[in-house]
């Protein structure tokens, strides 16, 4: 029987600093560690004592790739605390900025971070040398996503226009309509992306995941919905803490999330798709079917196809929102702070993001909890690796290592997001 150790000191093409350690002893996998050594960032402690109105802009700084997700969670949580509902065109604009973020985040991951794995390139630069048209298409898609975020949010990274209750300034209709033509091109490019990625070689690998995503009666989930799973969970967002908990593991600076009943679970595009296929727009469903992707997909490597299908959906829905847009009378709904706890779960590009805030009567944050998608996926990533290595132990060393890294990137992990929340452990002897 053979023993070996696979080590990847620094994972490339993931956001943040992480490594991978897999130990095989006597022909079986003895240890798998997704090591996250990016320093903790203490955002939750930083939020205590700040005014509720600052939370969207402070939490946006957790991530440069999905700042809108943090802003949306913060505003929804505060509105839930203060008993305010934001509807109509303001709600639609929120969806629009979030969909823009999905487009830019998915385009970045599909084209520049994940596709090189499948095609055997060390990185996107080398891939672009042989496939310039492909890299060009990816950059254009990302750019159009950024344009949508900038049109609603004021700028593409860490937008400045989002506030509790709505927006600081409403875009004029004429500011958004030029995006329609761009998004129509993007939708076609996304359909082409689905075709392109569906033809990539996929390892024959499936697992029986517990998928967790939001579900809304009428919409593919983005800003709101109940938290559901394919194994019977169906709860409102405010009950999240009753069903999920975080634990500290020694090899990671990011807390690992588990379900109290049922352990590890998987969030993200694959979970959303499996739980909400019927709510994808017709062109997105059509693109999936044409690509031979079933409504149920348990192969994590195929998440690259699912992300591409979600890009089709995001472009399609964004076009509809802009076409129907009429600026409302007021850019925001007035909110009055009251002592309360607010909760929100939204669908970040990488999966559900949970925020909970305690607020006092002056609107000062007394307590904050943030659970990002990557923290929730760490256990699923480690289990994927354990099973993948067990099954493909006979692969040549370099190929096995390559595919392990690729397996981590199936989740588009955002390590910077995940490490904001570690509690320091002090041992006194």
């Amino acid at each position, binding site marked *: 029987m053979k023993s070996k150790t696979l080590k990847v000191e620094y994972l490339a093409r993931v956001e943040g*600093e992480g490594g991978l350690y897999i130990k095989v002893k006597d022909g079986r996998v003895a240890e798998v560690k997704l090591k996250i050594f990016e320093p903790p960032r203490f955002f939750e402690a930083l939020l205590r004592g700040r005014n509720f109105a600052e939370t969207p802009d402070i939490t946006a700084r957790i991530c*440069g790739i999905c700042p809108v997700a943090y802003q949306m969670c913060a505003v929804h949580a505060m509105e839930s605390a203060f008993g305010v509902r934001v509807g109509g065109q303001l709600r639609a604009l929120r969806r629009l900025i979030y969909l823009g973020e999905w487009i830019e985040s998915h385009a970045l991951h599909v084209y520049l971070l994940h596709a090189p794995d499948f095609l055997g390139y060390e990185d*996107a*630069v080398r891939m672009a040398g042989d496939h310039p048209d492909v890299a060009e298409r990816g950059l254009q898609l990302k750019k159009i996503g950024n344009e949508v975020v900038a049109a609603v949010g004021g*700028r593409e990274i860490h937008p400045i226009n989002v506030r509790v209750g709505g927006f600081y300034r409403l875009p004029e209709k004429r500011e958004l309509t030029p995006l329609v033509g761009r998004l129509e091109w993007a939708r076609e490019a996304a359909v082409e992306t689905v075709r392109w990625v569906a033809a990539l070689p996929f390892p024959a690998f499936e697992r029986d995941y517990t998928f967790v995503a939001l579900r809304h009666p009428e919409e593919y989930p983005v800003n709101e919905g109940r938290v559901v799973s394919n194994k019977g969970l169906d709860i409102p967002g405010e009950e999240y803490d009753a069903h999920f908990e975080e634990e500290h593991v020694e090899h990671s600076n990011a807390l690992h999330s588990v379900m109290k009943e049922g352990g590890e679970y998987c969030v993200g595009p694959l979970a959303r798709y499996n739980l909400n296929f019927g709510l994808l727009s017709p062109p997105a469903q059509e693109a999936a079917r044409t690509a031979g992707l079933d409504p149920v997909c348990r192969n994590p490597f195929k998440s690259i196809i699912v992300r591409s299908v979600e890009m089709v959906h995001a472009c399609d829905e964004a076009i509809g929102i802009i076409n129907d847009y009429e600026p409302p009378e007021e850019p925001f709904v007035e909110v009055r702070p009251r002592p309360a706890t607010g909760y929100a779960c939204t669908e970040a590009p990488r999966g559900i993001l949970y925020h909970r805030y305690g607020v006092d009567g002056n609107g000062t944050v007394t307590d904050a909890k943030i659970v990002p998608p990557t923290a929730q996926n760490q256990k699923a990533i480690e289990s994927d690796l354990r099973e993948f290595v067990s099954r493909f132990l006979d692969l040549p060393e370099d190929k096995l290592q390559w595919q392990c890294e690729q397996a981590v990137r199936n989740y588009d992990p955002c390590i910077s997001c995940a490490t904001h929340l570690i509690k320091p452990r002090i041992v006194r002897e």
Partner: protein
Amino acid sequence: MVEAIGKKFRAKKNVLVIGVGNAYRSDDAVGLVAARRIAEKGLTDVEVVNQTGDGAALIELWQDAGTVILVDIVQADAQPGSIHRFEAGVRPVPEEYFHYSTHLFGVAEAVELARALKKLPPRLIVYGVKGKDLSPGTNLSPEVEAAVPEVVDRALQDIHAAGATGELH
């Protein structure tokens, strides 16, 4: 994030100066500071912008420019405050100099991706200043601060050489 802090450039001949960095991480702001000082010269035919370092945005930004001068912090085996100049059209920008950040797709990758896509501007000059302090804060360390006037002077020489009028107004 792209923030225009100077004049708009109008033709391909003109010069684009890009300051890259994070204003709140001490020496990481050196590119922004140098760009601001160049902008303060009020040169005609020169546009100055600040940028966080997102690679895709950089490629977009420089595609219509004739000469691009980019200033950023670098990590190199060198003294803090030392200045490293690269002509991107002549040879690749060393990845290890710019790979300090967790941003996946930074300056070096942007240059090389643009090269692969034939989207490099006719001339791209990169100034890297070796940093010392990256902790949260808004002040440059004395070593890095001391390097700024030389970076600005050398960039101004490049601007003149590029044929921009360089008139003060």
